[in-house]
């Protein structure tokens, strides 16, 4: 294994290879910082230029792009609540609240450090276990992957706090949307309603951008407050962020281990790892109720896992020639183009190349983190940018990201639709993270379930495979034990209270019997959190008149979607219909329950005075501005549209006496966005942008 280390290092440090690694790192960093364009997109789009390189340059270049995305994607997650990459979505949960508190520097410092150390963890594990990993990977077939996916969903659900019904509705609604498109088992285009654009399902990047970015822009425009509420972001804090990671080794190790493990398993998908790491960290925390309000562990765990998974995902590629993720699938293409077949033979004959790959991954991760720390002071200033300037710039990039992901205007439409859904969910008091988790997990669950069923010729015998059985059993124990403990304690204390003359079930009888006190460590937090008033399954409950209506309307909409999908599902047969049926049977009653609960709540508080909302701009005005951009894009093309839009919004939403003063920064912002788009999208990635109706 280590015999070719010296040779690999000397190749890596040669200027031909190190130069392309630096270039790849810069490209990956810049591209991943922009919302919507992920490092995987960049790898795919830049693959052709590697054909002219030798194998060391080509693989090192692509690995550098891949590795640079880990930390870079978290920058906008933290600063503006817009994930730079789908895999950084979990970082928004606590990263952005930290920015709102003026702690953006600390969050960026923690993210950079966790990313670098997580990557180091993943690569070290890869090096140490490479010789023996083949048999481990082969031990995880579809049944085992189904069990692990199921466990992830169950544990995430178990540690989600607060109003669990709202969380379930949100998660199951995400699953229902993910059902649209090709059924992997039968080849049927499900729930496409005759629209070919839905044949491949809803693309994840526009969905994530829409759900996270547009609601945030809505909030900013509505309140007209910059992200850092005090108006001036707290400078510094980066060192505190770095030290916070070093003082929380458990969070770092947990995140890194989860990332590596999930990365190793082919087909589970890199987007899952940060979510599992986040919720695992929350479950293990003594103060889980603080998650979602801006705690540093909520940044450390997902970011460590996000970068550690890259090392993990290289396992199946290098040992078996099986790509475990989209990015490694592109690496496999690069291998093949250069006449190299990754696998056992390559490991015995081509170890210098493996070392070059590992060096590129490790170097890029550390380098981008160092650079990120160095420039975070400047990045933090973004949180003080006025909303009328930030919103049009970010919306332009978000819609462009949606476009670039699917290379079609449909991406823009998807982004807007999910933006609308995100705003409605936020106003109705439904959290968006469970939606994304459900959206991501459903295809993984369904695919592995179907494959397991097919392999076992229609029987459920796959559930009895040793690893599958063990994982599922542990899941049941982990999820059920706190409830069992709680029930036992209740009975015991009820008996004691009865002996003391207290009424069973009274508050006094239950005093001091917090279910978290004897629950397993991993779930203590979850149980403690169930008592918490604030929760992450619920956004703040709406109190305004319109909010109260939307609170009822949203579950009604979900119910209507469920009914329509359920009826359509009746026309499908066999495996095509199995998973949808399960989702609809769960979602329908829960949505109905929420309609009833929201209606009762409305009835109960109907006489209470409405809370006066502090808003600067009306919903209609904001909606008009948001919709104006795609209309402009469609009419005049991208470049004129963003220039006009940024300037128009900046000036149009300013008071008449400040317009002249705002013109220079509007011109500057439009120029910066224009230059960025031109250089990155048009020149580097060679993406043909919409040119407008009249071109």
């Amino acid at each position, binding site marked *: 294994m280590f015999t070719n280390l010296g040779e690999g290092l000397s190749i890596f440090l040669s200027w031909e290879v190190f130069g392309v690694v630096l270039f790849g790192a810069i490209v990956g960093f810049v591209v991943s910082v922009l919302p919507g364009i992920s490092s995987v997109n960049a790898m795919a789009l830049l693959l052709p230029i590697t054909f002219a390189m030798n194998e060391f340059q080509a693989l090192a270049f692509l690995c550098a792009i891949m590795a640079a995305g880990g930390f870079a994607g978290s920058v906008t997650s933290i600063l503006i609540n817009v994930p730079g990459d789908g895999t950084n979505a979990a970082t928004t949960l606590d990263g952005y609240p930290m920015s709102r508190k003026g702690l953006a520097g600390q969050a960026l410092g923690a993210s950079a450090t966790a990313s670098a150390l997580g990557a180091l963890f993943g690569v070290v594990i890869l090096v140490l276990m490479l010789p023996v990993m083949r048999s481990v990977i082969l031990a995880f077939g579809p049944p085992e992957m189904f069990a692990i996916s199921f466990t992830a969903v169950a544990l995430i659900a178990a540690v989600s706090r607060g109003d669990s019904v709202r969380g379930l509705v949100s998660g199951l609604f995400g699953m229902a949307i993910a059902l649209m498109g090709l059924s992997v088992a039968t080849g049927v285009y499900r729930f496409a309603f005759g629209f070919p654009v839905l*044949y491949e399902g809803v693309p994840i990047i526009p969905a994530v951008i829409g759900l996270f970015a547009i609601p945030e822009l809505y909030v900013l425009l509505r309140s007209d407050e910059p992200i850092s509420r005090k108006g001036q972001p707290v400078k510094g804090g980066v060192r505190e962020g770095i030290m916070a990671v070093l003082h929380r080794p458990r969070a770092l190790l947990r995140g890194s281990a989860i990332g590596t493990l999930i990365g190793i398993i082919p087909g589970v998908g890199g987007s899952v790892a940060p979510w599992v790491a986040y919720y695992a960290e929350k479950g293990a925390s003594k103060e889980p109720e603080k998650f979602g309000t801006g705690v540093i562990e909520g940044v450390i765990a997902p970011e460590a896992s996000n970068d550690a998974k890259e090392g993990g995902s290289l396992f*199946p590629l290098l040992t078996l020639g099986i*790509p475990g993720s989209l990015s490694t699938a*592109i690496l496999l293409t690069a291998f*093949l183009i250069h006449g190299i077949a990754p696998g056992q033979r390559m490991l015995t004959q081509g170890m210098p190349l493996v070392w070059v790959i590992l060096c590129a991954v490790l170097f890029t991760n550390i380098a981008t983190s160092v650079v990120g720390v160095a420039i975070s002071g400047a990045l933090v200033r973004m949180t003080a940018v006025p909303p009328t300037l930030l919103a049009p710039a970010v919306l332009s990039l978000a819609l462009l990201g949606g476009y670039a992901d699917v290379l079609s205007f449909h991406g823009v439409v998807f982004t807007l639709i999910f933006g609308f859904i995100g705003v409605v969910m936020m106003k109705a008091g439904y959290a968006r993270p469970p939606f994304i988790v459900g959206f991501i997990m459903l295809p993984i669950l369904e*695919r592995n379930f179907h494959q397991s069923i097919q392999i076992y010729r229609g029987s459920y015998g796959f559930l009895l495979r040793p690893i599958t059985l063990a994982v599922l059993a542990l899941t049941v124990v982990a999820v059920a034990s706190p409830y069992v403990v709680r029930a036992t304690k209740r009975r015991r204390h009820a008996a004691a209270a009865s002996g003391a003359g207290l009424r069973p079930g009274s508050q006094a009888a239950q005093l001091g019997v917090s279910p978290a006190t004897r629950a397993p460590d991993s779930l203590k937090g979850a149980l403690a959190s169930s008592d918490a008033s604030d929760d992450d399954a619920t956004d703040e409950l709406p109190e305004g008149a319109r909010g109260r209506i939307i609170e009822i309307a949203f579950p009604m909409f979900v119910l209507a979607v469920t009914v329509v999908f359920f009826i359509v599902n009746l026309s499908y047969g066999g495996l095509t219909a199995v998973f949808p049926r399960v989702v609809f049977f769960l979602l329908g009653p829960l949505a109905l329950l929420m309609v009833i609960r929201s209606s009762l709540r409305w009835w109960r508080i109907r006489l209470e005075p409405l809370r006066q909302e502090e808003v600067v701009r009306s919903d209609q005005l904001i909606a008009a501005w948001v919709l104006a951009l795609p209309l402009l894009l469609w009419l005049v093309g991208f470049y004129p549209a963003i220039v006009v839009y940024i300037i128009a919004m900046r000036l149009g939403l300013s008071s008449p006496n400040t317009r002249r003063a705002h013109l220079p920064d509007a011109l500057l912002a439009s120029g910066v966005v224009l230059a960025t788009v031109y250089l990155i999208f048009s020149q580097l990635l060679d993406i*043909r942008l919409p040119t407008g109706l009249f071109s």
Partner: protein
Amino acid sequence: MNIHATRRRSGHRTFMSVVALVLLLAACGGDDDPAADDGTTPADDGAADDDAADDGATAADEGTADDEVAADHTFQDGDTIVLILPTAPGGGFEAQTVTLQPFFEEAMAEVAGVDITLRIEAMPGAGHLTGLQFVQNAEPDGLTLVYEQIDIGVAHQVIRGEDLAFTDFVPLGALGVNPLGLAVPTSLELPSDDFMGLAERSESEPVLIAESGVLPQLQLISGILSQEDVTFEFDPVTVDGSAGLSAALLRQEVEVGIIPIPGATPLIEDNPDDLEILVNLACERSVAAPDVETIVEQGVPGADRICSAAGEAWRMVLGPPGLSEVNAAVLQEAMQVATSNSDFQDALFETGFEPTQMSPDDMVSYVQDLAATWEELSDFIELEDTDS
């Protein structure tokens, strides 16, 4: 090998001048080729093209009809021909067309005397349908083409009944073929080590076969065999692409995997004790695995139909319906020149794809025959209808 060496433009001009002079002299010397008189394109002269491909000479070097074609086409210097990939960027489709790009540009200069740019543009969506429909509706001027795997286009038209007249597309050139094969674990016990052994074994229990994506190939094979009174029962396991297929085979979760032979050969060679290829389902032996017998050689009843309908995945460059004959002929000739270049063929083979060639007439026949066969056997294909 650097296949993307800088184009030697000055060298080109010199070469083109020589070619033009030769063609001028040839034209002055008269044309005895009746094909040129009756307006048929040089592409129709399949035999001559094949010969040219074999010895590496260009059609322009020897053809006398080509100069007429070259004179009438509408391509101009500075034109950009957009080659649509109906797939996401970063995969085999892109690797193959990027490999083609410089050779095609050179060939267009050679054949038509124009300096064009071939722009490769990914247009994914709807299982290739978005890109195909875009080209179907494009101006038929030869500046918008598509690179597609023929069975996928045929499946959209014949099986799914989409709004696509794929059989009206104009085939311009075949890059190569992916011969399919059946890979089995070496531990699999069969009455005989060939396809008929597998069919015989399937009589006692359906064979568990992994396929990457939902493909009609297995159903077609089973259908054709049933017409020959041969039983071939199978239970499909749909896995995720070639990666899922490889994993399923290595884990021995399935008894058979239907594989693209060139792409899967490294896996087989990497695991000689675990996996082997039982049969090549294509009509001819694979360059990647020359020792593996074809289904025809194994004497399977109906093998001729099986191999052409379900054993080969051809990928071609096609123009939109209505493409003018003159421009089509130029593009076909350029494709012929580009794909017969041995450097191109070597580079293409490295992408896991077998370079072979097909004359324009054969390409048209292949597409039409495939569509007709699938139409005829549609009863055996049990893909459920797409919802509407």
